[in-house]
Structures are given as C-alpha cells and as structure tokens.
C-alpha cells in the first residue's frame, strides 16, 4: 500500500461518500414512512432519536463537511493549477472540516444529553 496524504484523502473521500449513501437510505426509510400513517412515522422517528443516533449525527456532520470541502479542494486543483499546494490544501480541508464539525456537533450533543 502506497501511503501518502493523497491516499488518506482518497480513502476518506470514499468512506464519507459511502456514509452519505447509507445515511440517504436511512433518511428515506424514516421520511418515506409518512405514507404509512402517523403511528408508523412516529415510531420510526423515535427509533432514530436515541443517544447513539445523536452521536451518529455528529459523525454524519463530519462526513458531510469533509466530503464537501474535499470536493472544494479538488475543484481548486482542477481549475487553478495549484498541485504544488496539494498537501496544504488537504490539511486545510481537514482542519476546516474539524472546526465545523466541532462547532456543529457540540450543540447537537448538548441538546441530546441535556434533554
């Protein structure tokens, strides 16, 4: 295995992409149940309100933010010929994603665990 920052970004991009697809399936499973009536919808909604799902929401936020900024990083490379800054761009995307995940994740967890 040839390890590099490029490889790390490649793996993270794929993992977060798969995570987003899985989330989409779960999202449709919950929202789609509205066609089955109020009780079914409420029961499915309750199933994803548990603390473990709140943690998963923070992970989802991290995946969304990283995937988005990794995409921005690649667009910058595509359009601005800046391959010499490839490592800086990766670290920048990672740090911005981490900051936004913390900024968004903390309120989620505070609301979830303070009732």
């Amino acid at each position, binding site marked *: 295995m040839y390890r590099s920052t*490029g490889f790390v970004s*490649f793996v993270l*991009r794929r993992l977060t992409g798969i995570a987003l697809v899985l989330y989409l399936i779960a999202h449709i499973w919950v929202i789609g149940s509205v066609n089955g009536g109020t009780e079914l919808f409420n029961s499915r909604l309750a199933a994803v309100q548990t603390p473990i799902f709140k943690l998963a929401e923070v992970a989802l936020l991290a995946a969304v933010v990283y995937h988005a900024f990794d995409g921005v990083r690649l667009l910058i*490379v595509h359009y601005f010929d800046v391959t010499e800054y*490839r490592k800086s761009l990766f670290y920048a995307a990672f740090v911005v994603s981490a900051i936004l995940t913390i900024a968004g994740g903390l309120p989620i967890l505070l609301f979830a665990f303070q009732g």
Partner: protein
Amino acid sequence: MASPVRSKSMATVRVKRFNPDSDAKPYMQEFQVPNLQGTTLLDALHRIKHEQDGSLTFRRSCRHAICGSCAMNVNGRNILVCKTPLQGQLDRKGVVTIKPLPYLPIIKDLVVDRSTFWNEYLRVKPWLVPPATSPEREFRMSPEEVAALHNAETCIMCGACYSACQVVALNKKYIGPHALLKSFLRVLDPRDTIPGERLAEVGTDEGVFRCHTIFNCIDACPKNLNPTQAIETLRRLAQKRTAFEAARVERQRTIAGPLAAEPTPGAEGGVRHVP
C-alpha cells in the same frame, strides 16, 4: 530468521525476497553493509549481491538516474536507488527497507513485471506524428510552447508514478500517469498532427477521467515532473477537442509555410498555452 547484530558502522538493508520457484510468498531478509558516506542504495545492493548473496535479483543499468531501471520502493516511497544515498534513508536504528515497486506482479526479488506499464504506454501512441509535408527549414516552437510542456519530455519511464498510483492498483484498464504524461507531451507539441485522436483516446473513463487526483504520481516522480497537472490539462482539452484540433491545423499551417523558420511571437496562431 534472527536479526544480525547492528552497529553504527554497518547499515542494515531489509530486502523483500521472492523466488517463484521455491517460495510460497515473499519474505523480508536482512543484510549488513558498511555504512559509508557516498554509498548509494544501488551500491549497497551490489555489495550484497557480490559479497553475500548472488541470488539477489534487481534491475539496474546506467547508474546515472536516466535509464529508469532501478526504481524501487524504499521505506514506502518509490525512488531511483542509483541516485539515492544510503545514509539518507536509514532510520534511527540504521535500517532501510527496500521492496519492489508496489501493485505490480513480482517476477523475482526486486524485479517486477512491467507488461501493463508498457502496454498502456503503447496505447497512447507515444511517438510524434508529424505533418505529411516537411517544412523548408526546421520546425520551430515558441518559448511559450516549450514552457507549456513542463519538461514532460524528460520522463525516463521508470514506472515510479505508475506503481504509486492507487487507481492503477484498483483498475488495470486505467492508462496510467506515465502514458497520460506522454500523451500530454504529444498533444501540446505543435508539430503533432493527431491531437484530436489522442484526446479521444485519453478523454475516457479509462483515461484522464479515471484519475482520482491522489497526487502520488507527483510525489513519486524522481524527475520532479507533474503528471497530475498534465492530466488536468488533458481533461480541459478533451472537453474542447474540436476547437483545439482547429487551432492545431492553423498552427501546422504556420509551421509548414514559407515563414516556418521565423520566430513565432507569443501565442499568435498557436495553441492555447496552458500554464
């Protein structure tokens, strides 16, 4: 196998060994060589082969970083061992690890099968296809046109970029950074007459659009070339192939005409210069 005693005057070279006739799978073997200033990794391998184990197999030829034979994976990085000092690669314990190029089938020890590498290379028609009629004097390229090639002509075909590419590892139909760099060289060469055909060949999901922009090819290149940038340029040109072909025809006309030997100022009548 017990590790030999290590000392500062000696360097430990860990080599990945594999003999398809006798080994079920590859294994690591350690050798001790003198830790001398000025010794290259290739010198160390030669010393091992000449003095300790004549069966150690590796490719090398010119010893001057121009033939591209001795690309190997050293401490996880693809490099040319002939131009790399031993001491610069030793870790704190005085150990360096040498493996064959990754993602390619091992023939024996450090020698890998480069068949796919060369097959993909031939696929992009790496040779120049000049106009049918020669100009009265020499073909002249403007300084801007030469600069736009980004020294791509200095590629030594060592395979370091190809075997560092994870896309190659995942998809053997991918043309690969080495061949795409060569295609880039030919497409941007104003003397070439088939840029449209070349762009059609590489502008597919087995060519430039398969690249995942991992950048390993840049990190691995011992000549500091930039295959990723070449691929990005080909991507743009592939999307406006017709206009690029028309510009090339016009450029060919200025090359082959009576003013062929006159300098070509700027980009007038020429191809778009990609920075």
